[in-house]
């Protein structure tokens, strides 16, 4: 839009036209507007990074330089690792953006993406082979990358881990047909012990004192007369503690560097007295945190940003488990309501900037990961609302401010996830509604009583800890407590479940990657009844899950020594106490889950086989096997029979809904057979992110009528697009038949609702009665996509005009114009539920 037109149109007019992005631009403060537009958008579009976004060579060089320097050092690996970490923080370029009040970024400069060359050679090769992401001059820097890569070949974490995996499992997994990602603790989703570090009781300096006491104590012990196994282990503990200390000290130092930069700008460059004051405030803040606990909202946010920045320097974190209102809320209350040192508007600026500091973060990723994420860098889902450890409503003024700020900055990542419970106040519900109505696509709703029970059921957390949960990635609640938090969940325990049903027809042979991946079940044509067929399905399911889980278990077992996390350990009470790396499974209760991509295809396919083959006897299994092998070619009538004349999930039809329950029951049973290294279970969690697009050409024809190449269903337990013919209430009813406590870990449900339906007070009344029923039905999750088809079609035709149209793509939010055409079509194809 032309600037003049933007100026002449009032906020009200924009709101009336539902042009929320323009309304937000008009409504937000000058500072927020500047900072919002200052973001270099780093989520890859169709697998490609935006022009100008570059791999950060500085960190890779610093890392490599220090590694070379320490090659001959006798230090334990964990110490060397900590020193590399410290070297990066001490020497990286830092910056302070104009108007910013919060500082800290994972890369060196605003347009850079963090690249850790020590993680995996396959990632390093991607950096080399992606000239669009290599900084200018490309030819020179390509050589720099070559040198870095050459140094790390055979030395990266993954290179070192490869030989210690079961080679057969690894080959099957890396074929890309059944799994996602690599089993490596240097990359994944890290929950944190917020109860230890974010409750104002201690910060880095106090932890360092505690570490000193521990080190002195044990050092003295090991030199007393005597010798035993405990004493032998003590040396490893001493190394771990030393390493933690090195990283925490480096953390304090880099904060001081920011403080110094702020003072230098204030004293030498800045002329505006107001900005000078702000810079001095930044300096004071960074002198205070992370060394000492925060005293106000700005310090609290800054402390959190520093911890995230350091943790994301140490590992490639693909998620952002946090509970910002719960941990920062008391500071908001103190500054705004009690001390009145901040006005609500000033506080809103800080909250908005806090979101922006996360939105700009990016770590360089391989192309297949980027494709699976479509427009964002990771699934950063911040958890808000919920209850405290005593079950009391935990919503506070910051809960509301976060949602208000989210509407002003309108970023696709991070998103918000709201822990609904019966005691949430109406005013908070209205804020959630408003965010959704304004097309943000978040907060999504999580059913707190159900999920607290679920978390206790699967991992045995005590109720007081289960109540302190935050999403570890998109959907999996994880307590932010000493033994409750899971420091690393590797993305590769992600099953492409459509392969389960596909393998029943191929006896486990995968025609796409041309290898035997699944179980060698008997020829499908020999099955005489549905029970035999279902038994083969169960075996394929168990086989695929086992391949993925074995590798993750192996990696988690080796992680404390091969891929240690001294910084994350340094902010984890259990590691401070035990001297064990935080990845050590023996000090964790566990929060493992199998992400079940493309799950519902199984249910619809099984229903179609049961109905058309075994009951109606219209086709034989031999015929169906052949049809699938031929990708239905020349058999369109038969294919349509399987699409139209078999019951489909999501229509409140017990015939197929019972099959869903049976599949989940089998998976749940097997979840308890599979154990993680903490001795805990592996429940499944159906969701897709954008896997339905990624796998389109990897999953063959299926008995639900799908052809090779067709996009898979939207994901989770959402019905297939256009197949939910009975409307949204029937979808909820179907989903409500699942026991969301014992049936699995969590279940993603996407629904599109029409903005016209939800306009005004009556829209809110409708939505809130809908939500109450969703809660009554015991469904753990729901997210709304509240954008109408006309807007989406226009966005497809004229993307420039709709830069900020945000839609929901399974499990997270992405800007519509950023997702690939295929995903766009998929979204539009979904029935606009409830629109008259």
């Amino acid at each position: 839009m032309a600037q003049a037109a933007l100026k002449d149109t009032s906020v009200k007019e924009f709101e009336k036209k539902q042009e929320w992005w323009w309304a937000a631009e008009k409504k937000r403060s000058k500072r927020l507007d500047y900072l919002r537009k200052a973001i270099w958008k780093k989520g890859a579009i169709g697998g490609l990074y935006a022009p100008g976004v570059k791999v950060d060579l500085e960190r890779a060089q610093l890392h490599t330089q220090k590694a070379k320097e320490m090659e001959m050092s006798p230090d334990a690996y964990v110490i060397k690792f900590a020193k590399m970490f410290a070297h990066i923080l001490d020497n990286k370029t830092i910056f302070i953006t104009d108007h910013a009040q919060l500082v800290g970024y994972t890369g060196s400069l605003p347009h850079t993406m963090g690249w850790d060359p020590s993680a995996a050679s396959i990632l390093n090769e991607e950096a080399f082979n992606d000239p669009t992401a290599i900084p200018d001059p490309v030819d020179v820097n390509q050589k720099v990358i070559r040198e870095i890569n050459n140094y790390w070949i055979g030395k990266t974490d993954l290179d070192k881990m490869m030989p210690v995996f079961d080679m057969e499992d690894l080959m099957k997994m890396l074929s890309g047909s059944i799994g996602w990602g690599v089993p490596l603790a240097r990359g994944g989703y890290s929950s944190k012990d917020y109860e230890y570090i974010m409750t104002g009781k201690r910060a880095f300096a106090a932890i360092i004192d505690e570490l000193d006491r521990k080190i002195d104590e044990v050092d003295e012990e090991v030199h007393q007369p005597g010798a035993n196994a405990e004493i032998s282990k003590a040396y490893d503990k001493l190394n771990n503690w030393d390493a933690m200390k090195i990283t925490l000290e480096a953390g304090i130092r880099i904060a001081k560097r920011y403080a110094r930069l702020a003072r230098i700008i204030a004293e030498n460059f800045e002329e505006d007295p107001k900005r000078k004051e702000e810079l001095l405030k930044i300096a004071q803040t960074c002198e205070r945190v992370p060394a000492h606990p925060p005293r106000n909202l700005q310090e609290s946010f800054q402390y959190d940003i520093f911890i995230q920045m350091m943790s994301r320097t140490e590992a490639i974190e693909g998620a952002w488990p946090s509970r910002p209102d719960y941990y920062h809320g008391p500071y908001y209350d103190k500054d705004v309501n009690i001390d009145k040192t901040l006005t609500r508007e000033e506080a809103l600026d800080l909250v908005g900037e806090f979101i922006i500091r996360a939105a700009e973060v990016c770590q360089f990723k391989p192309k297949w990961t980027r494709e699976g994420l479509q427009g964002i860098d990771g699934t950063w889902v911040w958890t808000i609302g919920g209850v405290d450890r005593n079950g009391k409503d935990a919503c506070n003024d910051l809960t509301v401010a976060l949602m208000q700020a989210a509407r002003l900055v309108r970023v696709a990542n991070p998103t918000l996830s709201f822990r609904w419970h019966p005691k949430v106040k109406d005013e908070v519900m209205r804020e959630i509604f408003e965010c959704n109505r304004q097309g943000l696509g978040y907060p999504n709703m999580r059913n707190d009583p159900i999920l607290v029970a679920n978390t206790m059921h699967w991992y045995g957390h005590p109720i007081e800890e289960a109540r302190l949960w935050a999403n570890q990635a998109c959907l999996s609640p994880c307590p932010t407590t000493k033994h409750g938090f899971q420091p690393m969940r590797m993305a590769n325990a992600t099953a492409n479940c459509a392969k389960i049903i596909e393998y029943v027809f191929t006896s486990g042979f995968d025609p796409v990657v041309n290898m035997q991946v699944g179980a060698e079940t008997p020829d499908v044509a020999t099955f005489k009844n549905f029970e035999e067929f279902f038994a083969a399905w169960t075996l394929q399911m168990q086989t695929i899950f086992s391949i993925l889980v074995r590798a993750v278990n192996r990696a988690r077992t080796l992680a404390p020594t091969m891929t240690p996390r001294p910084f994350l350990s340094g902010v984890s009470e259990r590691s401070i106490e035990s001297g064990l790396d935080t990845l050590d499974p023996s000090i964790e209760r566990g929060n493992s889950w199998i992400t079940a991509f493309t799950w519902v295809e199984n249910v619809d396919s099984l229903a179609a086989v049961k109905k058309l083959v075994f009951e109606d006897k219209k086709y034989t299994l031999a015929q169906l096997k052949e049809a699938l092998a031929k990708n239905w070619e020349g058999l369109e009538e038969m294919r349509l029979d399987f699409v139209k004349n078999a019951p489909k999930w999501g229509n409140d039809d017990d015939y197929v809904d019972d099959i869903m329950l049976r599949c989940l029951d089998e998976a749940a049973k097997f979840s308890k057979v599979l154990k993680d290294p903490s001795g805990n279970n592996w429940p499944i969690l159906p969701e897709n992110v954008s896997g339905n697009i990624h796998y389109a050409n990897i999953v063959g024809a299926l008995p639900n009528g799908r052809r090779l190449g067709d996009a898979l269903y939207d994901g989770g337990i959402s019905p297939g697009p256009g197949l939910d013919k009975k409307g949204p209430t029937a979808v909820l009813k179907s989903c409500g038949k699942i026991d969301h406590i014992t049936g699995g870990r969590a279940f993603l449900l996407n629904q599109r609702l029409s903005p016209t339906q939800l306009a005004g007070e009556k829209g809110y009344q409708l939505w809130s009665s809908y939500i109450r029923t969703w809660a009554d039905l015991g469904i753990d999750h729901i997210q709304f996509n509240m954008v109408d088809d006309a807007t989406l079609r226009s966005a497809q035709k004229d993307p420039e005009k709709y830069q900020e149209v945000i839609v929901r793509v399974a499990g997270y939010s992405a800007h519509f114009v950023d997702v690939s055409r295929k995903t766009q079509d998929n979204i539009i194809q979904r029935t606009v539920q409830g629109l008259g």
Partner: protein
Amino acid sequence: MKQEVLVSDIQKFAVNDGPGIRTLVFLKGCPMRCAWCHNPETQAPFPEIYWKFRLCVQCGACMDVCPKNAILPPISPKDAQSEGSAYHKILRDKCDRCLACVEACRYDALTVVGKSMTADEIIDEVEKDRPFYKNSGGGLTLSGGEPTCHPDFAAQILQAAKQRGIHTCLDTNGFCEWDVLEKMLENVDLALFDLKHTDAAIHKQHTGVGNEKILENLARLSETDVDIWIRIPVVPGFNDSKAFHTHAAEFLSRFKNQISRVDLLPFHNWCQDKYGWLGIDWPLKDTEATDPSFLEIPADMYREKGLAATVGGSGFEKTAKWASG
């Protein structure tokens, strides 16, 4: 044998037909022929065949099985689907609705409207959304066609719903004998009562029947303790004049203590596909849909007379009167 009636559709998540989230049951058959009818498939009391031209690949399978030669030979799908094409697959006057063609169609291009259902089957379907009724104040809305065409059957459904504790709305055009209506009211919580026109001659001209019986029934209804919402479909060229609204508001104000709401329903032409599928030429197809905001002015005329009025009839719009009740 159990009594069965043809149901053209059961629509869940209906939010503009009585309070809350409701399940709307459409019974086939209607004594009126309103020119603007947006459910033409509900008028006839027998099953009908939709020919959905966009899905038709012109394979000719239907023609092969038709015993009455009532189906036209295939033409190119592009021509058949082109704007303004007069081609319609079925010669309605020859067709005896044996449905052989529907059986033969593999592409869902030929489908039947009207499914025979018992009251129990209907109520079981309505029951499914009970969790939504509780939280939204919703329930069953029995509609049509015209439910009073099937007095015993409709009464049976309403009674069954009440027995199960489900809130009931009867959506009626009011064109029936009073004793028929009265018999149903026992199990009706709220009547959605249509008022199309206050002038008998104009009413007859556009709906095929006079309004005398309707107005009389409304008067009688207002003497019962059944809650009433008046529904006025505002149709351009028929009842969108100031004179009509003045008169209607005046008339309705007589019963203002019994009428909780007056819903002005903006005309739309989204039903034109259905007319096309039935092979009926619809005279209003080129009449544009009314922007709901245009009806706010007439709505005020009812409000001035002490009637709570809405535009669109949302089941979630809390009018002053409804909220207090």
